[in-house]
């Protein structure tokens, strides 16, 4: 991608050229077209005219700015749905990834929609964090005269449900914006409520002269999905626990084979894996609910319901549908939120038993969602296969052994020759750059998966850019995932260098961020030379520690103040050279 479209020779001051490049550089074709039209209209209207009047359309459409903050791609997809519907109703929508948003541009947006996902424990999607913080900060511009609406996406399984959407909604109003459609908070099954909200929003936002037209929303009747995002069946042709038999970890390498060719995925993309529940867990649940023997319900629960998640909403439904007095008290006294921590649906039913029928039990569950795993292979190297790297999640809480639904499905119930259902989940925000660019990859644990795809791809395409991988896990001897692959890649040049950090081999734990720090001089040299910096893996601690290490590296190597070093990393983020895929 061309980062600096405005030449140094343009009739602007140097700072202005930088500023323009920052906006125009990363702009999509759509945005550039809009800008072209807007500027032309501005000139046509003469000096002093403020109302943007795009020149091209015969009947001038009213502009609508749609900002999405997306982690898994749902918000982004809904932004597209909204734009489509808006276009049909006399609006001219512009979609902006919140990661690329220049806040000052919002002051001139007459109509503004935010579609914002909440991630983890009430956090914005990683890419949107920087702009989100600006929006919440003192420097945010006033938005008088801007009509807005917010659609929030979240997961009731997490305590801070839709927190980011809520905060943005409040903030836009506090900055002087005018809310013209009420916010809706969507759970995992967002399709229907989101579709309805899009209809309401378009109705409220559409210019009056579009009246009389039926507001159309496409959420129900989906067009035939593109081939690469179909749910397809795949056969497991290789199944290996990559950790040694002495490891306390279990990380499964799956090679999937697709009849008639692998779906079109690119390095950086994920596969949604459709898991099934542990039959033993479902049996326990049915037993606790007094519904053992209901084979139909058992089969349904194993295949298609989320029977583990326990949210405040679940507790509320339980209280109202059963009238259980203790559960009501728990809610009334505000203790439910704390109680559900570390617990699952079975704990609720086992702790507060009451007669349940199948319908009431079903109402406590949600549809079983797929789990996305970064693809660990490149089609250019493995042909009709896709490889996944899946770490078995097992822990204990409140006296019960717990397992990750999808990971234990893979680790405990699948074997070579079995078939699984998967769907490609593209991630264009985590793709390889041009082949001559250098890349730095930080991927401890299963975070290394997409980088195996990167390295395979770069080998297959004979990319000339250098590549540098930072990997970490617990023990060198027992947890070095894909060690032989990396050794081969270093030999054949697909990987230029590799640094490793094994946390349990030494008295003091060493993590990838320590290795980044050790190698800071060369690291900054690579980045100064235009390298892209990729981080994949744990979002809670690792991704933050890695970013902090990079800031410190800039400060140390270039003798910068902490603020200036932070700014150096912000610049990388703005230039889309600091890319994350964390979970």
């Amino acid at each position: 991608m061309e980062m600096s479209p405005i030449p140094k020779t343009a009739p602007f001051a140097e700072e202005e050229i930088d500023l323009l490049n920052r906006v125009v550089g990363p702009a999509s074709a759509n945005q550039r077209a809009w800008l072209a039209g807007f500027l032309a209209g501005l000139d046509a209207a003469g000096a002093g005219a403020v109302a943007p009047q795009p020149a091209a359309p015969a009947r001038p459409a009213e502009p609508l700015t749609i900002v999405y903050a997306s982690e898994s791609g749902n918000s982004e997809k809904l932004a597209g749905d909204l734009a489509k519907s808006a276009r049909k109703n006399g609006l001219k929508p512009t979609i902006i990834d919140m990661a690329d948003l220049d806040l000052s541009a919002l002051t001139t947006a007459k109509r503004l929609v935010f579609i914002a996902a909440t991630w983890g424990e009430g956090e914005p999607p990683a890419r949107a964090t920087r702009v989100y913080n600006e929006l919440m900060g003192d420097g945010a511009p006033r938005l008088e005269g801007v009509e807005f609406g917010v659609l929030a996406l979240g997961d009731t399984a997490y305590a801070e449900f839709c927190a980011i959407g809520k905060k943005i909604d409040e903030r836009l109003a506090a900055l002087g914006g005018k809310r013209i459609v009420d916010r809706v908070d969507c759970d995992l099954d967002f399709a229907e409520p989101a579709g309805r909200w899009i209809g309401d929003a378009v109705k409220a936002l559409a210019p009056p002269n579009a009246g009389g037209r039926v507001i159309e929303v496409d959420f129900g009747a989906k067009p035939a999905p593109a081939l690469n995002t179909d749910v397809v069946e795949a056969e497991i042709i290789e199944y290996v626990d990559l950790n040694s038999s002495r490891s306390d970890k279990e990380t499964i390498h799956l090679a999937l084979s697709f009849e008639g060719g692998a779906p079109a995925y690119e390095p950086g993309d994920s596969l949604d894996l459709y898991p099934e529940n542990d039959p033993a867990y479902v049996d326990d649940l049915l037993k606790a609910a007094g519904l053992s023997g209901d084979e139909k319900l058992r089969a349904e629960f194993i295949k298609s319901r989320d029977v583990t998640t326990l949210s405040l909403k679940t507790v509320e439904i339980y209280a109202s549908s059963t009238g259980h007095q203790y559960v009501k008290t728990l809610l009334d006294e505000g203790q439910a939120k704390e109680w559900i921590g570390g617990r699952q649906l079975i704990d609720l039913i086992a702790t507060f038993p009451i007669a349940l029928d199948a319908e009431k039990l079903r109402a406590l569950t949600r549809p079983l969602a797929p789990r996305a795993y970064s693809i660990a292979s490149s089609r250019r190297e493995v042909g009709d296969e896709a490889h996944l790297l899946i770490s078995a999640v097992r822990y204990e809480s409140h006296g019960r052994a717990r397992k990750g639904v999808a990971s234990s499905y893979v680790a405990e119930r699948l074997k070579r020759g079995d078939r699984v259902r998967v769907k490609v989940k593209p991630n264009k925000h985590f793709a390889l750059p041009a082949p001559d660019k250098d890349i730095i990859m930080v991927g401890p644990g299963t975070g290394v998966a997409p980088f195996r795809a990167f390295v395979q791809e770069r080998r297959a395409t004979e990319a000339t850019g250098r590549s540098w991988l930072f990997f970490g896990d617990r023990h060198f001897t027992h947890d070095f995932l894909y060690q032989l692959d990396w050794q081969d890649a270093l030999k054949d040049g697909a990987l230029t260098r590799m640094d490793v950090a094994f946390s349990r081999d030494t008295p003091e734990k060493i993590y990838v961020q320590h290795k980044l720090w050790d190698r800071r001089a060369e690291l900054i040299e690579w980045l100064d030379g235009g390298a892209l910096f990729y981080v994949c893996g744990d979002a809670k601690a690792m991704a933050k520690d890695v970013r902090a290490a990079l800031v410190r590296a800039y400060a140390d190597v270039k003798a910068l103040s902490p603020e200036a070093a932070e700014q150096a990393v912000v610049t990388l983020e703005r230039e889309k050279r600091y890319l994350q895929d964390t979970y």
Partner: protein
Amino acid sequence: MTDDVSRNERIKEASDYLRGTLAEGLREEITGGIVEDDQQLVKFHGMYLQDDRDLRPERTRKKMEKAFAFMIRVRIPGGVLTPQQWLALDEVSRVYGNGTMRLTTRQTVQLHGVIKSNLKATLKAIDTVLLNSIAACGDINRNVMCNVLPEQSRAHAAAIELARSVSDHLLPHTPAYREIWLDGERIAGGEGEVVEPIYGKTYLPRKFKVVVAVPPSNDVDVFAHDLGYIAIADGAANIIGWNVTVGGGMGMTHGELDTYPRTADVMGFCKTADAVKIAEAVVTVQRDWGDRKSRKHARLKYTIEDRGLDAFRAEVERRAGVKLAPPKPFAFTSTGDRYGWSEGSDGRSHLTLFVQNGRVHDVGGVAQQTALRTIAQMHDGEFRITANQNLVIANVPTSQQAEIERIMREADLLAPWSGLRRNSMACVALPTCGLALAESERYLPDLLTALDEQLAAHGLSADDIVIRMTGCPNGCARPYLAEIGLVGKGPGRYNLYLGAAFDGSRMNKLYAEDLDHAGIVAALEPVFAAYAGGRQKGERFGDFAIRAGFVAASGNGRDFHDNTGDKRAVQ
């Protein structure tokens, strides 16, 4: 150098005095191994690159290289450690090693399972208590052994002094160890400076082992080593000098009859003042006369066989400028340790512990490593590792005796073992040793349990019988000097040797080949039965096996493979 020298000779010569590319190899983080030539050189620094052979079958499938780790063998002349040194080794074994310490048949401690990235930290930690692993392996003089002598404090002082003097004198001079492992400055040699005055660029043709023995105890197995000193005392128990032995060695190769274990010859007698000069001369003669073409024929024992003892003695005397006197009479009684308390001539007490196969660890509810750590923390005497892989808590004041005994008894280190078990040794073998053809340390305890049942049935439980097992024919546990020797042939298969002398003066002889567990038990049963019924008063098991015709007597080595099987001499 001629074209037909062995590959190791070229590696040594090109190594720049044992540096090779070890420093570069350490920085290579993606592999736990080092390149082949460095694998030879690292031995001179006291380490072997090994891999966990139990894990081999799964590694490639799991897309991982072999489970590489290093064995570090510390150099401990005479096996004597201070409590602080014991504590340091105990700690590194738990922090960087596999959580165990291995006392060896040559009085050192081996740490196993140290991965490459932790080597420097481990060696630095060892260095802080003035220990190192320089020349603990490799074609060079290795750890110098010395009788532990719990009851002869004065003789021990003289013997350990000689052991340390020889050890120091034969140390390599290259600063490579300090440079590579301790981040020492590279020391540039001056123009024309002789870096290794004793060894030269290519060191010795093969490993070289020195021991010091004080009769009547032959715990160091003086006849099993390249060079030995046997203390000769006057009537007042003052050591007046040493008988010098040369040409012992255990290694051989299955099926190659021109390789054989050999017991050393007594070459002569020297005064204490000349002992180190003799050691240097023996080393330099072997350096120049030893076979550098075939590593299987490179030990001093073959040099002496090829050149003759007289020629060798003459050359040693010439180089040392010392004329050796004829050997003085001496008498050994056993190769074993004397368990329990003994009082030294200076009034201090020593407690000898039985450490099964020398493995110090906490396992199966028995916390031996923890117990020994407790002793090290309260004790200000010495730890002495014996040549039988056991341990002596030396120089214990009377006030601590009861407490130390209580702790050791609780840790099963003073248990009343059978006469067979307390005279047993096994080498490490699987899963770490790359040479092992069969199990040894992990198997011997179970075999002993089966044999103990038989011995009990014959009323032989209390009789001292020496049994030793190795996983390959190289002989680390000196199996050819055991009354019952078992040498690994293949997985679960052993050759059985009988008829060695209890005092370590005569080797055994092959009795049966390729036995599995049941085969070993079945083969020994009639021998035990015959011994129980037919032994003469005081007759040792090994001597009986010869007198009763189970095997012929072995000479000093060249005849080791003769008179076995059908050609067995029947008396």
